[in-house]
């Protein structure tokens, strides 16, 4: 090897390293929100007259929404000054140490960069909430108001929850968050009626209801980007086939299944126009793509191993993840023609259930790396750098992670409390909440609605 070639190779290696390094935020930083979060003080809002009894619900919901977004450093209320502003008119430019100047909130002991305040009143039998968000930092004192909103709801706990969600959503959007989870829904399989049916619930576990009544085995839903349809695998006609249902009323929509012993793991493309799925039509289960009605199908993968769980990148339709062999199951990627196949996971253990973060850069997935076969844990990986972080640590089996539309929350299945149940958590593995209790609940996917 000549010296020149050596230099060329060295330069290439350095460039590649620099490219990789420069492209990617460290995965640990990424999952905790890049650091440097706004420090927010959320005051306790008070209500005039009949509105006051509802404010306990409002205050806890607002705090929990903002905290749950993982966008903010939530300042403890115990450090707050005695007086809280309720209207902008209450604010004084000078530091009076009583809480009515913004600098009172910016300095110690509160040390907040932002403050949320406001009040509510009953107006003609309607709950009206006035909410403000201000920047407390002296350098921004010329234009401290970031947000003012007037929100209305019914004069009950539901109304108070609604206005809290809406105000929290506006605050989150101010900080570049993908919005609150308000309105998003989780679709899953539950056997609580005796047979596995497809169910839906609100993002926080409320309003659980069955979508299907097929009295068979209906599992592994995928949800369309607009949240209007679920596609899933059902044994209602004997062999496992793909079915599509409306999320509004559970009505079945036509889907053409190929003549095959197995048609399964349907997933909508991010443009909502196609469904990728796995079929044994060609013998060994392989990845196919078809229209929303199953027509015009086309084989994509040409593997000499089982291929299932196709997931199209939300930012690039030419990048498709799937799970395949040979050897222990791993996550692979390919292009939309089935070429340029590359293994994503490093070959350790078994890997499955890839779920794209809306940023198209990160995935959550299940992996047995570091544990015995079958001991699944949830991991998050940067698809470019292949850096990964383990979010669960063998508290039962943890599988099927699926990103919320906000890109910060995950829903997953865990056996940590016995039978498989659904849980949510933040991308850094904190704030784990159990959403289901009855029967066995599995295969969650998080829809925009």
């Amino acid at each position, binding site marked *: 090897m000549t010296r020149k070639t050596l230099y060329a190779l060295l330069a290439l290696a350095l460039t590649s390293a620099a490219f990789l390094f420069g492209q990617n935020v460290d995965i640990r930083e990424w999952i905790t929100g890049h650091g440097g979060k706004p420090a927010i003080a959320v005051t306790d809002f008070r209500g005039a007259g009949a509105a006051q009894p509802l404010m306990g619900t409002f205050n806890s919901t607002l705090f929990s929404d903002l905290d749950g977004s993982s966008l903010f450093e939530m300042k403890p209320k115990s450090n707050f000054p005695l007086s809280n502003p309720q209207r902008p008119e209450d604010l004084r430019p000078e530091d009076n140490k009583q809480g009515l100047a913004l600098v009172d909130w910016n300095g110690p002991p509160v040390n907040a960069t932002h403050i949320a305040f406001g009040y509510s009143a009953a107006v003609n039998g309607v709950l009206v909430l006035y909410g403000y968000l201000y920047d407390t930092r002296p350098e921004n004192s010329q234009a401290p108001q970031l947000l003012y909103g007037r929100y209305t709801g019914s004069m009950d706990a539901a109304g108070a929850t609604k206005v809290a969600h809406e105000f929290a959503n506006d605050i989150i959007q101010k900080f570049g968050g993908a919005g609150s989870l308000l309105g998003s829904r989780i679709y899953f399989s539950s056997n609580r009626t005796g047979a*596995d049916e497809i169910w839906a619930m609100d993002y926080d576990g409320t309003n659980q209801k069955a979508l299907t009544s097929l009295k068979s*085995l209906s*599992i*592994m839903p995928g949800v369309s980007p607009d949240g209007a349809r679920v596609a899933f*695998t059902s*044994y209602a006609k*004997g*062999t*496992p086939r793909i079915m599509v249902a409306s999320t509004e009323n559970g009505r079945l929509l036509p889907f053409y299944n190929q003549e095959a*012993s*197995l048609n*399964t*793991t349907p997933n909508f493309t991010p443009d909502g126009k196609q469904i990728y799925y*796995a079929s*044994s039509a060609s*013998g*060994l*289960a392989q990845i196919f793509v078809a229209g929303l009605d199953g027509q015009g199908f086309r084989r994509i993968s040409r593997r000499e191993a*089982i*291929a*299932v*769980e196709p997931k199209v990148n939300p930012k690039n339709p030419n990048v498709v993840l799937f*799970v395949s*062999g040979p050897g*222990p*199951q791993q996550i692979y990627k390919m292009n939309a023609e089935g070429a340029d196949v590359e293994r994503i996971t490093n070959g350790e253990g*078994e890997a*499955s*259930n890839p779920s794209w973060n809306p940023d198209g850069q990160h995935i959550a997935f*299940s992996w047995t790396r570091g544990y015995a*076969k*079958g001991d*699944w844990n949830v991991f998050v990986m940067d698809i470019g750098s292949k850096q990964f972080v383990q979010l669960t640590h063998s508290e039962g089996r943890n*599988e099927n992670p699926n990103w919320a539309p906000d890109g910060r929350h995950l829903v997953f299945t865990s056996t940590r409390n016995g039978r498989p149940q659904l849980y949510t958590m933040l991308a850094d593995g904190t704030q784990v909440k159990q959403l289901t209790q009855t029967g066995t609940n*599995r*295969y969650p996917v998080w829809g925009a609605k």
Partner: protein
Amino acid sequence: MKTNEWYPVRPSTRASIAVAVALTLFAAGCKKKVVIPPPPAPQPTSEAARVNPPSASAATIAEFTVEPSTIERGQSANLRWATSGATEVSISGGIGTVAVSGTRIIRPDVTTTYTLTATGSAGNATRTATVSVTAPPPPPPPAPVVRSNVGTLESRVASDLQDALFDYDSNNIRDDARAALTADAAALQKIFADFPSASINLEGHCDERGSAEYNLGLGDRRASAVRDFMVQLGVPAAKIKTISYGKERPQCTEANESCWQKNRRGHFSANQ
């Protein structure tokens, strides 16, 4: 003749053919009837007439009946006849010469017309009697064959067919599975003989460790591997439907290898 060669035939020609066919069939049907024309009456010679002067008696038939006139094939009927003035009486249909009066039991297979010929010195007389033979009604369908050890399809499938067991993440037919499936193929032939319209589900199952989605693919592979093996042994492919259950329908739910092995299987079930 190929069917399509009929099509170019013009309607008129077709009608002629139909008539010809009908006539042929009719003729064929008649052939079976035993109709023997009466023999010509013997001409008395002039000498005989001279030597034996006629007694001036002509033969007459008082009665020639068949009772009953319609029988089913295999039943019998009675011919009854009475003549007078006859020197010889004979009945066609293989009966031949008979007494001047009498009865005869007949058992024809097909409709038959019997001709009685009474020959007298002064003249002959003939009369016919027909017995119609009808075909018996078709028998009822054969009673189902009752075998004491047939049981139900479900019970036979459950008791006579063994699972084929697999290694983890594998669809290779192991030696023990090969032996089990060879016995299964023989048992299946008997089951299909006892239940000719039955077909069998071949279920592919996996243990709980691989991911549920991957295991649907793996169970499918196992079921097809078993099916292919059975087909090699002569079991009709059309009688076997493969279904992958992945790890959705385990028969054993403990987390140990003995239980996992039970779940890594190709399993036969009756197709409802």
